[in-house]
């Protein structure tokens, strides 16, 4: 745990260094695309009120000066499968973004969606020494949370205190300075496969960048596509990506649950490819141009040229009706949504006061998806697009970029995590004294 603490603190330090330098890169490593945005921090005074952009989420303290997207290679289910391919794709995106920004970046904040995220709710209690809660007490109560067995080869990605309770008063955001006897805290911990983080770290290091932070893409896309009252009252964000579908549940502006379904838009494409006997690229084109999930009578008459390059006339002149295409796509989309429904049920989403569901991500652009999702997930479903931030090119304002934009907000204003608090003071001397004694014994 201390190792993790140190490495996360080192990343926070990197982030501070990057903020001082004023330039930081955002890397969204997805299964279908890798996006790189370059942010320049001007400080809060250089606030230029653009149309429709308010200073609500701190998104006015930075400006995007470079943006590049490239087709992702070597990433499957949101995890890096082929290191050198992924490294090349990251290099392509970073170089293009640097070229646009005309500035060199040395620090990157990355997010990815896969690696089997698991959520844990942690609770801790602490009897206050004197009745006023100090920062040390907050650190102690966080340290007092009992950590469950997260399993071999897993790493903590987020550990955020979501709620503090003082005696019988719960729902405190910041308990410091308040008076009571017993401080309790609820913490949300998200763990992922350590190997995925290692691979990403290695790829980013090979691109001569320093990692200044890492986040789950389900979390950051919820950050950017949920509006403020949804975050406050309770909502789930479904980030439908290429290789995996991320789920994050927010309440009181804190993420309390995150999960991922290892299915996404790429599976729909591969279904089309198999069903229509076409290459993946053609299937992708057909899906984006003609895809849908709700068939009408009109769709029977709309014939889609599939085309092929075989030389056989019959094969090359094949057509399918849009209804057939929808017949292929719909079961897979339903399957994904049902899986999401199962995860939400397992998380107890139906106990939340407000059950808003927001669909975002590239695969949420299938026409008619909101109708289908309303049938599966419940009535309160909407399609979400990311927040507008300054300098974002028009091409990157779609729902496919909600995790990249959310990562920008994360870079500007990260929520307090466990490692942002100091280690309780009584633990430091014991450890360092022990270490000093050991060093002394080893050397003399």
């Amino acid at each position, binding site marked *: 745990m201390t190792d993790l603490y140190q490495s996360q603190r080192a990343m926070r330090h990197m982030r501070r260094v990057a903020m001082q330098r004023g330039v930081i890169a955002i890397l969204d490593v997805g299964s279908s695309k890798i996006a790189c945005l370059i942010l320049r921090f001007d400080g809060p005074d250089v606030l230029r009120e653009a149309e429709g952009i308010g200073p609500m989420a701190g998104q006015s303290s930075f400006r995007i000066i470079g943006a590049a997207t*490239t087709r992702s290679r070597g990433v499957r289910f949101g995890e890096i499968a082929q290191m050198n391919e992924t490294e*090349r*794709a990251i*290099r*392509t995106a*970073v*170089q293009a973004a*640097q*070229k646009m920004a*005309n*500035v*060199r970046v040395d620090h990157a904040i990355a997010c990815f969606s896969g690696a089997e995220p698991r959520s844990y709710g942690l609770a801790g209690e602490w009897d206050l020494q004197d009745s006023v809660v100090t920062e040390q007490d907050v650190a102690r109560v966080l340290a007092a949370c009992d950590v469950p067995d997260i399993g071999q080869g897993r790493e903590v990605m987020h550990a955020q205190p979501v709620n503090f309770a003082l005696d019988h008063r719960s729902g405190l955001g910041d308990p410091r300075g308040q008076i009571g006897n017993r401080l309790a805290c609820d913490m949300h911990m998200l763990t992922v496969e350590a190997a995925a983080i290692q691979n990403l770290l290695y790829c980013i290091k*090979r*691109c*001569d960048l320093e990692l200044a932070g890492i986040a789950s893409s389900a979390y950051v896309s919820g950050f950017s596509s949920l509006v403020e009252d949804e975050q406050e009252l309770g909502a789930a964000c479904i980030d439908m990506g290429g290789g995996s579908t991320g789920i994050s549940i927010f309440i009181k502006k804190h993420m309390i649950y995150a999960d991922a379904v290892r299915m996404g838009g790429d599976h729909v494409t591969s279904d089309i490819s198999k069903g229509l006997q076409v290459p993946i690229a053609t299937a992708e084109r057909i899906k984006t141009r003609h895809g849908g999930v709700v068939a009408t009578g009109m769709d029977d008459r709309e014939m889609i040229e599939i085309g092929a390059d075989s030389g056989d006339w019959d094969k090359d002149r094949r057509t399918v009706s849009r209804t057939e295409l929808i017949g292929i796509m719909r079961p897979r989309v339903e399957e994904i949504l049902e899986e999401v429904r199962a995860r939400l049920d397992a998380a107890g989403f139906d106990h939340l006061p407000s059950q808003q569901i927001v669909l975002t991500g590239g695969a949420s652009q299938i026409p008619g998806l909101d109708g289908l999702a309303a049938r599966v997930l419940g009535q309160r479903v909407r399609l979400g697009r990311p927040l507008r931030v300054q300098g974002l090119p028009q091409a990157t304002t779609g729902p496919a970029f909600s995790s990249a934009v959310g990562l920008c907000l994360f870079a500007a204003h990260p929520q307090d995590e466990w490692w942002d608090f100091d280690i309780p003071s009584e633990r430091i001397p014991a450890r360092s004294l022990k270490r000093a004694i050991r060093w002394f014994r080893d050397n003399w």
Partner: protein
Amino acid sequence: MQPLRSVPLAPHDPAPSRWAYRMHRLWLTPLFRAMLRVGLPSFTLIFSIGLYLSDDQRRASLNSASAGIWEAVQERPEFMVNLLAIDGASPALSEAVRAKLALTLPASSLQLDMAALKLKAEELDAVATAELRVRTGGVLQVTIQERVPVIIWRTESELSLLDASGTRVARIFERADRPDLPIVTGQGANDAVAEALALIAAAEPIASRLRGLVRVGERRWDMVLDRDQRILLPEVDPIPALERVIALDKAEKLLDRDVVAVDFRNEHRPVLRLTPGALEQMRNAGAPTETGASNL
């Protein structure tokens, strides 16, 4: 049919190579960029110039080439001076100026040091100011203002002409060369020419008898008349004293009498010095023998 392309081309990889990526990042580094865009060219330029000039022979040839170009420019007819014209001087003086300047014509006007020439011309005593100008047509115009002699100064060795400021203008060999000018003598007489001129002007009623002025002890004047009569004038305000002597002369014919000197150095106690004959006569007449007559 065989495939037209023997080796199927790999799909285009948009990713930059690791080295291209690093070079791009290096190029975006501000310091490196400044070095390469400003530092390197300037260093190359300075280094190559230094390398070229480090050889003595090259430097010498470069110098001679530049000197040759300069020579060619100087020798152009537009810059040549062929004639020296001297204005405002008497023929003798203009000859002297011409000799003093010692120009070898034709010469290039770029080589003439006008300030030095002006100083040289003004070194001549008779020249008050000289003005030099190169006129169109290659004429060096020297406009000279001559000093005007107003007085003759006799020293032990020679006779000099002085102008109103006391500066020596020329020497003459005989007094008779300039009979129109008054004469002064004595050490330091040239420093008080203005006073001498004022005295001579004041002595206009006795001008016919005036021989000259003598500077005594570099501080006061003696006026010498014919018959070796002297009027000793005070150091301060000599002109009123002289006017008193002239008034006495007019009233009592003082200077026509047998007087060797009229001493007015102390205005409260003027003294007359008589000739020995006159003194004898006065004693015989039974007059008081004091020379300091107080009722003058």
